[in-house]
């Protein structure tokens, strides 16, 4: 009995080859970003004889390395906090306090420049002002009879490096906060006033809560920014401050840790910290985008 039922052929799955257009990019990223990172990951699990081990990660908790991490975390946190607070205040002053537009444009453009002015040139500029024979040092010495180096200040120290880092941290905060503050609708302020709130209450209930994700997120970005910095620190302190990045650099020049695997593990630890920072920043940024839409 012949079947007269309609034969139903399921539609043939279209295999899209469009993704091949991304191949050059993906190959490049793999070869020069992912593979090197992965190589570090593999190396971290090997000991001096080449056998697989997790000991390197255990050794990360040793005092020497712990100090390095702690120092890096401290300087990153301090500059993130200071850059965050003062950057926010400056951004607020530029956007919301009624200064003329040209002032805002000028300073924001300057911040764009300053946030890129990191590394060796920045370090040398600060040496020129706060080094032992620097301009500001001399000013204090000759005009105010105050020798800052004799009173404990040292550019080539934690404090000095922090001040130097601040020079690109603060502008970065301004660059991100200024547009965010712009996005604060004038109507929110007016509606709040209209409903009976004072200026303080507006900031307390509406203004700061809306801005908080952006402020926190950017401060975390600042943290990551400082944590991964190498050139500025090296140019300024030459390796005397045992930051994680400096240690990794030292390990690359010579086997100072007597265990390459430990160096790789340190690098990986750094990557984890950076990944967490960027992850938090991205999440907070998404949240604020939703509100400031």
């Amino acid at each position, binding site marked *: 009995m012949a079947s007269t039922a309609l034969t139903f052929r399921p539609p043939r799955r279209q295999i899209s080859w469009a993704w091949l257009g991304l191949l050059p990019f993906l190959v490049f990223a793999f070869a020069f970003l992912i593979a090197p990172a992965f190589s570090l990951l593999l190396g971290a699990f090997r000991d001096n004889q080449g056998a697989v081990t997790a000991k390197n990660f255990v050794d990360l908790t040793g005092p020497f390395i712990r100090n390095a991490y702690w120092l890096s975390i401290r300087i990153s946190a301090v500059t993130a906090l200071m850059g965050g607070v003062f950057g926010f205040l400056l951004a607020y002053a530029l956007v919301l306090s009624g200064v003329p537009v040209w002032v805002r444009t000028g300073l924001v453009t300057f911040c764009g420049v300053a946030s890129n002015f990191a590394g060796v040139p920045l370090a040398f*500029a600060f040496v020129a002002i706060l080094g032992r024979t620097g301009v500001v040092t001399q000013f204090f010495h000759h005009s105010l009879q105050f020798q800052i180096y004799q009173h404990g200040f040292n550019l080539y120290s934690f404090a000095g490096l922090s001040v130097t880092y601040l020079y690109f941290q603060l502008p970065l905060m301004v660059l991100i906060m200024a547009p965010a503050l712009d996005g604060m609708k004038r109507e929110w302020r007016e509606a709040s006033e209209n409903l009976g709130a004072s200026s303080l209450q507006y900031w307390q209930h509406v203004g700061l809560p809306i801005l908080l994700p952006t402020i926190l997120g950017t401060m975390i970005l600042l943290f990551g920014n400082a944590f991964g910095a190498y050139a500025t620190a090296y140019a300024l302190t030459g390796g005397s401050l045992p930051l994680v990045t400096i240690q990794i*650099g030292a390990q690359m020049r010579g086997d100072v840790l007597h265990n390459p695997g430990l160096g790789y593990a340190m690098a990986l630890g750094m990557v984890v910290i950076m990944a967490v920072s960027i992850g938090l920043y991205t999440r907070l940024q998404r949240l604020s985008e939703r509100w400031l839409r």
Partner: protein
Amino acid sequence: MRRTNVWGWVWVLLGTAYFLMPLLGAFQFSLEMRRGVLSLLAYQRAFADPEFWSTFLFSNQMAVLTIVVSLALIVPTAFWVHLRVPQWRPVVEFITLMPFVIPAIILVFGMIKLYKSPIMIGGLTLMGPPTNSVIGTNALLVAGYVILAMPYMYRAVDAGLRAIDVRTLTEAAQSLGAGWFTIIVQVILPNLRAALLSGALLTFAIVVGELTLASFLDRPAFGPYLWLLGQHRAYEPAALSIISFALTWVAMGIIYFVSRGRGGQGQVAGAH
């Protein structure tokens, strides 16, 4: 109600003072090379050094190569993501975010480890260790710079594409009979001029003064030269800092003017 806040001006003045002081101070310092009198001696000495020119030239060449490779890689990719494979956007954006997670020092660490051995597939040696040859190392340097500049380059191009509504323009061009090459060259690229210029200038700013990659890959670049100079001399480094700042300022200024009115936002490179 636009009443100018006193506190606003206070913070603006403090901020301006904080920003200007290091620059003015460094500038003054750079003029003090000749004892007792302000002169441009430091600048003259700096420019008279042949090493300055050779390393500066080298860095500029690397910068140009980086820009070319970046553009050739990123523009088609961004275009493709916008047009044909939008579902890959999260992946591509994640990749362009990775250089933040893997800063220069880690990147060069990994690259040296990986590429100091010969490149093999299976048991076949494709080529010798890239780090053994000058061309190979230079290639690694350029590749590293492309990676470092990738977030900014991609974001600049992406924003530019978004601003011009690529899809509609392409469809309009196709309906009028244009082929892919014509579309990219005559329709898309001209409208991306501002974005491309921004990306290129930013890349330039990143590459020329860069220390980390150049020094560990042992290349005669401007960054390591500057650092070395700082170990032996006092006034010339300050002079070169000022020059470097002025150059960055010019680059950013151009970016600002070019991207004004096209929805451009200041690009940021962060620490290195």
